[in-house]
C-alpha cells in the first residue's frame, strides 16, 4: 500500500487506506449525527419554551386565585327575634285561604324513604329540619314550614333574617329556627340553622351544631341512594318522621324579593298573591305530610279541603 503511487488512476485508495466510498459514508454519518444533534437541540429549546409558557400561566392563574380566595363575600344582616305582627300573620292564615289554594304552585313534595324506619321521640313522630340562614332556598321554604307546623303546635322565639346578600336570590326575607323552640302534642320538631349569613374567615359562620344522631340522619338520607348524587348534601333538608324526606326548596325565592317580612307574612292571607300560592301551597303539602305521620290528627286540620287536595302531591 505504501508503494501505491499517489493519484494513480484505477485506484480509490488514499494514503490512509480509505476508499472514496468509505469517506462518503463517514461524511454521511457525520452529517446525520449533526442532524440528530440539531433536532435534539431544537426539541430541547422548544421544550424549554413550552415549559416556560406553562409555568408563566400557572404563576399568573395561581396569583389570581390566591388573591381572589382572600377576597371574601359580604356579610348579611344578623337575625333578630321575629316581630309579633310577623309571627301572628304567618301562624294565623285563615283556613279558608289554605282551602282555596290547596297545593298551589308548590313543587318538590316529600318523597318516601325506601326502607325508612319511623323516627320518634317520646312516642311522637319527629321531624328534623337542616338548613342555614344564608341559604336562599331555605329562606323560601321556612315560611311554609312554619305555617304548617303552627297548625299542630306553637313556636317560641322564632327569628327573622335574610339570606346572604352575596348569594343568588340575595337578601330573601325569611324566618330563622336558630334559638327557636317548638311544642306540640302531636309531633316533635327540631330545626337546625347550621350557618349564619355572616362571613367569618372567608365562609359563613357556624351557627347550630347537629347532634351526633341528627348528623348521622342528615349524612345518610341527604346522600345517594335517597337523593340524586347531584343533590347530595342539599339544603334545605327535612326528614319527616324517618319515613319521607324533602331535599331542596318547594318554590323559587324570586317572588319574595324586595319584600319586608311583614309584607310576606301578610301576603300569605291574600289567596290571589303569587306568594300565597307558593307559600300556602307549600304549607298545605307539608301539613298533609305531617297528617300522614299523625294518622290524621287533628282532624279539623287534616280533614280540611286544602290539606286533602295537597295530599295527592306526596309520592
Amino acid at each position, binding site marked *: 500500500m505504501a508503494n501505491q503511487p499517489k493519484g494513480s488512476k484505477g485506484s480509490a485508495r488514499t494514503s490512509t487506506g480509505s476508499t472514496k466510498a468509505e469517506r462518503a459514508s463517514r461524511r454521511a454519518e457525520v452529517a446525520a449525527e449533526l442532524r440528530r444533534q*440539531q433536532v435534539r437541540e431544537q426539541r430541547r429549546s422548544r421544550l424549554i419554551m413550552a415549559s416556560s409558557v406553562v409555568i408563566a*400561566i400557572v404563576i399568573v392563574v395561581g396569583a*389570581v386565585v390566591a388573591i381572589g380566595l382572600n377576597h371574601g363575600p359580604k356579610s348579611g344582616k344578623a337575625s333578630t327575634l321575629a316581630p309579633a305582627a310577623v309571627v301572628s300573620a304567618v301562624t294565623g292564615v285563615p283556613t279558608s285561604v289554605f282551602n282555596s289554594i290547596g297545593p298551589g304552585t308548590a313543587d318538590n313534595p316529600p318523597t318516601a324513604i325506601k326502607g325508612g324506619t319511623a323516627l320518634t321521640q317520646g312516642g311522637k313522630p319527629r321531624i328534623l329540619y337542616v338548613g342555614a340562614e344564608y341559604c336562599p332556598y331555605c329562606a323560601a321554604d321556612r315560611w311554609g314550614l312554619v305555617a304548617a307546623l303552627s297548625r299542630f303546635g306553637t313556636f317560641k322565639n322564632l327569628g327573622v333574617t335574610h339570606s346572604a346578600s*352575596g348569594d343568588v336570590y340575595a337578601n330573601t326575607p325569611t324566618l330563622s329556627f336558630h334559638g327557636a323552640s317548638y311544642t306540640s302534642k302531636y309531633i316533635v320538631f327540631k330545626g337546625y340553622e347550621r350557618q349564619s349569613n355572616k362571613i367569618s374567615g372567608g365562609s359563613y359562620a357556624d351557627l347550630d351544631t347537629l347532634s351526633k344522631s341528627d348528623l348521622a340522619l342528615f349524612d345518610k338520607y341527604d346522600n345517594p341512594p335517597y337523593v340524586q348524587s347531584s343533590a347530595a*348534601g*342539599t339544603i334545605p333538608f327535612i326528614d319527616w318522621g324517618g319515613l319521607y324526606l324533602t331535599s331542596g326548596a318547594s318554590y323559587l325565592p324570586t317572588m319574595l324579593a324586595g319584600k319586608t317580612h311583614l309584607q310576606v307574612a301578610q301576603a300569605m292571607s291574600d289567596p290571589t298573591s303569587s306568594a300565597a300560592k307558593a307559600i300556602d301551597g307549600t304549607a298545605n303539602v307539608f301539613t298533609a305530610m305531617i297528617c300522614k305521620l299523625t294518622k290524621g290528627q287533628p282532624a279539623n286540620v287534616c280533614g280540611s279541603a286544602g290539606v286533602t287536595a295537597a295530599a295527592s302531591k306526596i309520592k
Partner: protein
Amino acid sequence: MAKQPEVGVGPAPRTLTWATFVLAIAGLGVSAYLTYEHFTGSKTLACPDTGRINCAKVTTSSYSHFLGMPVALLGLIFFVVLVVIMSPWAWTSTQPLVRPARWVIVVVGLISVVYLVWAELYKVNAICLFCTSVHVITFLIFVLTLFAEVLREPV
C-alpha cells in the same frame, strides 16, 4: 448542502393526543351536566355548599351568560368542537387548517377559563366545583396540546 431537519411537522406522540381526546370527552360530560342544570332551573344546591363553594350561586349569577348566551351552553359547544379536533383522526389529519384551528380553540378556551375564574372569585364570590373541573380540564388540554406539538417527530 443537507436539508435542515424540520422539527414539529411529523406525527405527535400518541399518548399525548389520546390524553387530549379523553380529557375532551370528560369535559363534554361535565359541561353537558352544567347545561342540563342551567336549562332545568334546579331549585337544589347541587354541590357541596360551604358558603364559598356554591355551584348554584355561580351558575345563576349574571356571569352565567356571555353576550346573551348561557356560559354553560357555550362550554358544551366548546367541548363538542374540542372532542372533534382532539380526536386521533384529527391529530393525524393532513388538512392544513386543523392545526391552526386547534391552537385557536385551546387558546380561546384558556382565555375563557381565566376570565371565568376571575368572575367566580372577584365578582360572584363563589366557586362552582363542576365549573372548576371544566377549567382544570381545559388547562390540561392546553398543556398537553402544547407538548404534543413540541414533541412532534421530525421529518
